[in-house]
């Protein structure tokens, strides 16, 4: 490309950076990935796991769109479990314990093999902006200016990173590499607003110094599927995790040392996540709890280091030692690395468009923890979307935006760019109002078509997807079309599978909707059924069994779509629209929602404001102003 070192530069090699770079390269753009260190590419500086409620759905969506995270964890997991099996089809979620070393190594190998993609170790200190105000590249310490048509910043918690352990604190990134100081200032100079967040991590201990006999064993499961639609089931030889609990003595130690806890002395000012509080916060906020869970999770296969999930802390190292030793099974545990809190700067995510491009600097995209999120899965999802949109941008195409009713990724990004976040944002299923339609089992049915359209899903895989989709559709059609007679013979068979006789002729599909009937049990009265892969059976069963609820949810989606389809003009002066509150004017001018639906989700925009906006849009429509509408 003319004068460019690459089409797109990705800054940062974490989970966001990796997905962004791969998406760009796979769509045919040339990519330069700049990282502070080759060994820390795709590292997991916090807990060694991927998935869980909400997050598993993200990973499956990444896979359905042609991303890498799902395949990478399927190839390198230590243990896999299916959570929430008893709580319903919408929230069943895979969760894997990762081999941190293997995960990173495999991802680096994937990057290395990708054509169009180069990785370079460099320290980025600035963003180059052209005369027209759009991003032209970056400036590195090593090489000076490096040119590209678009830049994706995915620097995680490196911006202005400060680590705290007790009363000691120092400037650092999470993996012991230097914090990125200049880049943060450079972004601020471009007019981008920054916020300061905090997150914490747990102490790591030597495996051979713990006594697991005092703990509960947690085994993995043999499952018929993994994260990727392209990999098969899980293997039986999985590593173990263990569960133990804090004691009243632990809590005493913590309480006695709160005077040395940076969270309580005022040394830490950044906002921490409520869903991932430090152990000191848990003890202070829930004084009535007699114990808190501590999970021992291996960091690598046959490795020597165990992660103490649930014990995130920034207490002084000597207090951590005392605290850890008060937990059954950890009496003699040797701490390899104490827990720490890290404060870092991140972008205020309302600086971003739904494409993850910054509003103020065209061609500059941001993805991952720098956008105020937490979690590897959230980062990877944004990386993928930023990568896709950077390529679409330089090709002059419309951005790729997923709706809240299409994907958890849509929920994630809409939440960020519409509401912003006052704490590190983590995905949860309760954030997705349409989660019954956004299940992990149907992620490919929702998204693989789109991934193929973008050029991220290769033909061969797309063929396999089409075949699976055909199987699902055919089987649903067959079951709803097969009528069961209401005769005595059938009644006997129904009694045998523990369900009431029929009042009238019923389809197999309707029978499946009975709570006590499963697809498997139905085999007795369905001799002609085809042999189907288990993942196909799963989708079919859920779609039919919960058809009533799914219909209900579709109704809710339609209801909301009425507001989503009322688009707001691109350049509205919200100060001139009558009837808006001052707060609404400020928020709307800042966020510039695409639709009335999005406006309604902005905090501080009241129903009265929405009425005023509707009235405004209506009056424009009457005057034939539609041509101005929409993004």
């Amino acid at each position, binding site marked *: 490309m003319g004068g460019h070192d690459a089409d797109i530069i990705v800054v940062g090699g974490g989970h966001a950076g990796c997905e962004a770079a791969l998406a760009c390269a796979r769509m045919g753009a040339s990519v330069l990935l700049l990282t502070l260190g080759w060994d820390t590419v795709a590292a997991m500086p916090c807990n060694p796991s991927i998935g869980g409620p*909400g997050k598993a759905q993200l990973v499956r969506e990444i896979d359905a769109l042609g991303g890498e995270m799902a395949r990478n964890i399927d190839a390198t997991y230590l243990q896999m479990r299916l959570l929430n099996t008893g709580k*319903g*089809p919408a929230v069943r979620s895979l969760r894997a314990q990762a081999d941190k070393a293997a995960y990173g190594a495999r991802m680096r190998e994937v990057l290395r093999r990708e054509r169009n993609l180069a990785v370079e170790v460099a320290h980025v200190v600035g963003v180059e902006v052209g005369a027209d105000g759009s991003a032209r590249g970056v400036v590195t310490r090593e090489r000076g200016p490096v040119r590209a048509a678009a830049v994706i910043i995915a620097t995680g918690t490196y911006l202005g990173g400060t680590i705290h352990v007790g009363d000691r604190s120092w400037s650092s990134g999470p993996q012991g590499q230097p914090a990125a100081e200049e880049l943060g200032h450079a972004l601020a100079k471009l007019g981008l607003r920054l916020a300061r967040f905090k997150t914490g991590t747990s102490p790591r201990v030597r495996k051979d110094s713990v006594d697991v006999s005092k703990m509960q064993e947690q085994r993995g499961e043999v499952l018929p599927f993994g994260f990727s639609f392209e990999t098969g089931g899980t293997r039986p030889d999985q590593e173990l995790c263990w569960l133990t609990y804090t004691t009243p003595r632990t809590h005493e130690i913590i309480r006695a040392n709160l005077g040395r806890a940076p969270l309580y002395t005022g040394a830490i000012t950044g906002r921490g996540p409520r869903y991932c509080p430090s152990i000191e916060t848990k003890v202070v906020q829930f004084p009535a709890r007699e114990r808190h869970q501590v999970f021992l999770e291996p960091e690598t296969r046959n490795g020597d280091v165990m992660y103490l*999930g649930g014990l995130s802390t920034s207490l002084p190292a000597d207090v951590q030692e005392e605290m850890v030793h008060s937990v059954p099974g950890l009496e003699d545990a040797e701490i390899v690395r104490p827990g720490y809190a890290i404060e870092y700067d991140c972008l205020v995510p309302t600086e971003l468009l739904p494409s993850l491009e910054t509003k103020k600097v065209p061609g500059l995209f941001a993805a991952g923890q720098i956008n105020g999120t937490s979690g590897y899965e959230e980062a990877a999802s944004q990386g993928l979307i930023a990568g896709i949109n950077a390529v679409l941008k330089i090709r002059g195409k419309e951005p790729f935006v997923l709706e809240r009713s299409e994907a958890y990724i849509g929920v994630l990004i809409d939440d960020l760019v519409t509401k912003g976040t006052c704490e590190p944002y983590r995905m949860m*299923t309760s954030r997705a109002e349409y989660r019954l339609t956004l299940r992990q089992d149907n992620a490919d049915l929702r998204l693989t078509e789109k991934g193929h359209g973008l050029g991220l899903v290769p033909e061969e895989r797309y063929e396999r997807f089409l075949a699976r989709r055909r199987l699902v559709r055919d089987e649903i059609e067959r079951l709803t079309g097969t009528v069961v007679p209401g005769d005595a013979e059938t009644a006997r068979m129904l009694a045998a599978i523990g369900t009431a006789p029929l009042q009238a002729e019923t389809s197999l599909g309707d029978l499946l909707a009975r*709570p006590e009937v499963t697809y498997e049990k139905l085999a007795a009265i369905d001799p002609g059924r085809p042999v189907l892969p288990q993942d196909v059976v799963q989708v079919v069963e859920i779609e039919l069994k919960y058809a009533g609820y799914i219909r*209900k949810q579709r109704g809710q989606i339609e209801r909301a779509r009425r507001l989503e389809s009322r688009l707001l003009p691109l*350049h509205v002066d919200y100060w001139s629209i009558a009837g808006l509150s001052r707060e609404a004017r400020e928020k709307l001018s800042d966020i510039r929602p695409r639709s009335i639906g999005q406006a309604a989700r902005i905090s501080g925009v009241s129903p009265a404001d929405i009425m005023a906006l509707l009235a405004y849009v209506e009056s424009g429509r009457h005057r034939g102003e539609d041509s101005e509408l929409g993004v």
Partner: protein
Amino acid sequence: MKVGQARTPKLTRGRERVYMQGYAENDTIAAISTPLGEGGIGIVRISGPRALEIASRLFRDPSGKRHRTLKPWGLRYGIVVDPETGEEIDEALASAMPAPHSFTREDVVEFSCHGGIGPLSRVLDAVLKCGARLAQPGEFTRRAFLSGRIDLAQAEAVIEIVRARTDSARRLALANLRGGLSAAVVSIRDDVVALLAELEAAVDFPEDDVGEPDHAAITRQARETASRLRGLAARARCGRVYRDGVTVAIVGRPNVGKSSLLNALLGRSRAIVTDVPGTTRDAVEDWTNMRGVPVRLVDTAGLRETDDPVERLGVERTRERLDEADLAIVVIDGSEPLSDGDVAVLRRASGKGGAVALNKSDLPPKVSESDVVPHAAGMPVVRVSAKAGAGIGSLEGTIARLAVGRVAGVSEGMVMATARQQEALERAAAALDEAARGVDGGAPLDLAAIDIREALFWLDQITGRSASDEVLDKIFSEFCIGK
């Protein structure tokens, strides 16, 4: 005093265009804001950035010579004059309420003038001549709503106040304006949020020690909340009686004193009947007020078997009127023995319900209560004398009690709700029942959550809030989360 709001846009091209294309609500509106009629006082209200300026152009001191300045929050006595001719129109009290501390959050001036359509419309004309625009129906309320001064339920309450036919109706609407319905809904809504948070915590944090939700407790809570919503809906229905009123047909044999009873009922209360536009004042029906319940009394032709075709037509109409009515007053002449004709009327009215008026109590009684009760199907019997005015108050009390009890079966803690709010309450209750039914039937928790969210959606239609973040806040404050 400074007029108008801080709205001084820089006229860049884009802004100008948007400004021009309108929905410009920064004009000044005016209307007569009291019911038209021969009332003692009538009010002309002006709202908008030019309200104060317009008002001071029209308003002179009592001598009529000098312009009178308006003092915020003060009442000023003066003369309203025609801005063109200087002619005096009416004496008035003017009050100025500067933005944003007025009903519309705009500058507001109110002229309290002599009631009566003549002076009021001339004052309004004068205001319009000075550049105000005639307000559309409900436009003041709409501005109050759009300015965030009142929420949707409150806005609807204002309309109710304006339309209120009796004091009780107005009091209920006023309670609603102060947030009566919203407050009741908000407290129930908090319980729904808590219920949802319990499910969501279990679903989103399966590995934390939040405990499995107790399915039986969830269905119980959902049903309890649904029944509280239904109770609120019932109280709201009850409130609707005070707003919409009931129709009571006065039926009976010919010449038992139906018309004089009608007159007695109307006569006693005529002074407090308000003028309601659109109500016809013909001889056979009129609105009255019984203990705060607006009652439309309908007189009917006497009911009896007859061969006369003209009279038969009258009887037919009486039957129709009885069918359309909410309640009946069966009038029986107590000074004559109970006849078959009386019994026939009682039988006919018994399906409708109402009261039996044993009329002519001023004459020696020939019918006792115990003669009537076997035919009255539970209708209470009240002795009255339409002529002497005896027992009328007791009959009114009976009818009012029946009207309220009939609709809702409750008589305390009423709230006013519009049909829209009523529907939202009922849909929310139905969704919660559905959730309970689902959990009972073995539906997983994530599906029950769909119904509970649906209930929240409908409650939010009343309070105008949105719940998503609240559920999370609730989870984090109630449960110790964080593996």
